[in-house]
């Protein structure tokens, strides 16, 4: 089987990962149910506002934001829902790094690199969706429901593999 050769990513790490991921999401769910004033609303508004600023800088048409909504070219609007604000990727990264055995210094250094990178990548994702909504509306469903959903998860996977190489030397 060769399982023993594969290093310490074993059942214990997988179970710890699942437990941390579920705990983070349940905490987020409860926070949303209680009004979302601490995490959900401020974080989603921050993503919306920052994405709109970036979009305004790089896209050749007017972009406005209000609350969770972004309007491009005065017509095409995008609503940043709770499952679209990038927190799901942040939680995956947090759980993956916290679950794997490493010193806390190493974990914190990993989080200090990867979480801002994921936030930035999410901004790129939202800006790209704003552009698709404005200029390639026929591709919006594929771009939104398929590509944009998976791309951040792919980066989480790549960052985690990169982190493991650093931890295991």
């Amino acid at each position, binding site marked *: *089987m060769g399982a023993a050769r594969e290093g310490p990513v074993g059942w214990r790490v997988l179970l710890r990962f699942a437990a941390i991921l579920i705990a983070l999401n349940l905490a987020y769910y409860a926070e949303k149910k209680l009004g979302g004033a601490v995490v959900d609303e401020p974080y989603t508004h921050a993503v919306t506002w920052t994405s709109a600023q970036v979009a305004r800088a790089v896209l050749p048409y007017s972009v406005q934001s209000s609350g969770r909504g972004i309007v491009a070219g005065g017509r095409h609007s995008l609503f940043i829902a709770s*499952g679209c604000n990038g927190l799901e990727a942040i939680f995956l990264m947090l759980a993956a790094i916290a679950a794997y055995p490493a010193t806390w210094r190493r974990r914190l250094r990993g989080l200090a690199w990867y979480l801002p990178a994921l936030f930035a990548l999410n901004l790129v994702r939202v800006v790209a969706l704003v552009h698709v909504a404005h200029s390639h509306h026929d591709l919006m469903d594929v771009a939104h429901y*398929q590509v944009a959903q998976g791309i951040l998860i792919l980066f989480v996977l790549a960052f985690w593999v990169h982190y493991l190489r650093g931890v295991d030397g």
Partner: protein
Amino acid sequence: MARCWPTLVRLLVAFAVWSWVVAQALPAYARVVVPAASALLELVRPHGVGVELLREGGYVAFRFAVPGRGGVSGQFSFALLTYNAVLYLTVLSAVPGPPLRWRLRFLAMAAPAAFLLHVADLMMAVESQVLSAVQEEHFDFLHDFGLWFSTVKVYNFLSIMAVRQVVLLGVYYLQWRFLPWREVAGPPAGTNSLAE
């Protein structure tokens, strides 16, 4: 860091290719998943409600009638339900190590799991809509807690936030780690690319 770039580029290229392929194949796949979920819902008749499921473009439309409330309808994006297949196919094809024959075996083993997951996920999404209509009072969970109602709502939230993303990647990891592809193939260069 330098060793990670080729893996990241391979993952991104594979993701782009599989996103296109899956987008083409989704209507055919929906013709299998939606009738299967529809037949099971007809069998189960959640809370005595007959639910009609229909394919409408890239969406799955649902309709049902609740006594005293009338008709309820809505739709789910089928791509949103199944995008994890793209993630699985991406890692299956882009992570170096297993020979082609073993990758095909991985795929053959994962396909039924993916199908069952997609059918179950669709049924749970419908169940959540039915519960919203027939047990509306449980939304006030502090005063009128419903165990099944809360379980379904929490499951759907977890499904959107985490389950869809990690389940098929987890299936790949288990296949990669526990199936004996190394014994047959020998240890080719790059087999350590997942998590060593």
